């Protein structure tokens, strides 16, 4: 029995690496993309704004699981060519693309709220002091926006940790997939339940990190 326990731990830790890959890559791509989308959604160019509103509606309006299927299978169906390549790398790549697009849409709405929440007087004060638009954004707006978006972003990012389990539907061996595999392979279900410990530890570390960031930003109001 103890041998079994260590072997389960080993394979779950290995799967956790893939879970972490989805998590980290999604953040790396979705945060800048979300910021770009938020600028677009505030644009004075109406067609651009409508286009982005449409994209956000579609990605927030359909299940992430469905988006995984579509992103993974559609290129093969339409182009008769699996652009994702065969094997586990291709599945991982498709997962990261689908997750990044989906999360960028959620982030864009949060970022827009954060930017619009900064009083207009801040921008005006920068303007009358002769600052450029980019100076105003980077030197004045950005940090105030970050302070505003930390609580809603921490919610989304914690949700992302658990959403990684959806990647199993296109065959990515992440944590839940690895735990589930023991039912068929060894006839035991506790490894699946045991994955909760890994998720909890993951989210626990993130929670500590977010508290730290919030404390760091509490020096101003």
């Amino acid at each position, binding site marked *: 029995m103890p041998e079994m326990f260590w072997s389960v731990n080993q394979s779950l830790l290995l799967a956790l690496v893939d879970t972490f890959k989805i998590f980290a890559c999604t953040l790396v791509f979705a945060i800048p993309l979300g910021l770009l989308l938020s600028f677009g959604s505030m644009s004075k160019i109406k067609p651009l704004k409508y286009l982005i509103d449409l994209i956000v509606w579609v990605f927030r309006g359909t299940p992430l699981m469905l988006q995984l299927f579509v992103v993974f299978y559609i290129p093969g169906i339409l182009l008769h060519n699996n652009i994702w390549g065969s094997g586990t790398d291709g599945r991982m790549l498709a997962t990261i693309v689908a997750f990044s697009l989906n999360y960028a849409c959620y982030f864009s709405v949060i970022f827009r709220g954060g930017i619009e929440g900064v*009083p207009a*007087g*801040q921008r*005006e*004060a*920068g*303007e*009358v*002091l*002769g*600052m*450029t*638009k980019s*100076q105003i954004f980077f*030197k*004045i707006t950005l*940090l*105030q926006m970050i302070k505003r978006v930390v609580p809603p972003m921490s919610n989304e990012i914690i949700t992302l940790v658990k959403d990684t389990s959806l990647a199993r539907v296109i065959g990515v061996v992440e944590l839940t997939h690895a735990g589930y595999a023991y039912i068929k392979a060894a006839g035991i279900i506790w490894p699946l339940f045991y994955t909760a410990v890994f998720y909890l530890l993951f989210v626990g570390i993130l929670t500590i990190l977010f508290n730290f960031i919030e404390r760091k930003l509490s*020096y*101003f*109001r």
Partner: protein
Amino acid sequence: MAILEVKNIEKHFGNTKVLKDVSFSLDAGNTLAIIGSSGSGKTTLLRCLNFLETPDHGTISVHDKVIFDASLPASDNEKDLRRKRLHFGMVFQSFNLFPQYTALENVMLAEQLLAKERPDFKQNKKQIYAEIEEHGKALLAQMGLADRMDHYPHQLSGGQQQRVAIARALALKPDILCFDEPTSALDPELTGEVLKVIRSLAENKTTMVIVTHEMSFARDVADQIIFMDGGIVVEQGDAKQVIDNPQEERTKQFLSRYTQG
């Protein structure tokens, strides 16, 4: 000699005309107070001077040079617009200090950013920054805030915040310093310290345009007064004359409300 000349300014928001044919001029070293009830267009006029609003008609000249002409297409690039803006400083009703910076950092920020465009910035960076810091500290000391330089805005009282905002506006040495109801957001006890600072600026011959509801202050400090109502200049002239001996019926009406208390 007139440092500021405003001619025939008009501005509407949608179908509402907020400014109708507003003209005035201001001599260097003089203080102009703009009075009038809420919605009379005085704040909009100030915002037009600072390029926060674009007038639909009219011209604005500083030092006899036209810096804004509504009849010409707005072809200014960002750099030109910024240079024109720097003729004016602006102190807002709600201070609008940058909350993430200390008092001193608020004062220094714009000057530091502008310094980066100097050709000798790279070689003399240290020296330039030292000069800017010295300048910022001197300005805050002038505002009586020498011991508050490292405080963040939320650690300061409203009167102190507004004095930091005045120092910040002075940092870029504007030709004309504008105030938009600088004491309206303050407790009555705190207005005095801000008015005192503005008074000392007037004594030092700072050219200023002040939108205010403080009638006795306007009478004492301003050289000229403009009374606005419904987007038009109803009466303008020597400050004491307008307050003590208004000519127009509408001005008398407005001022009587203040003198009755």
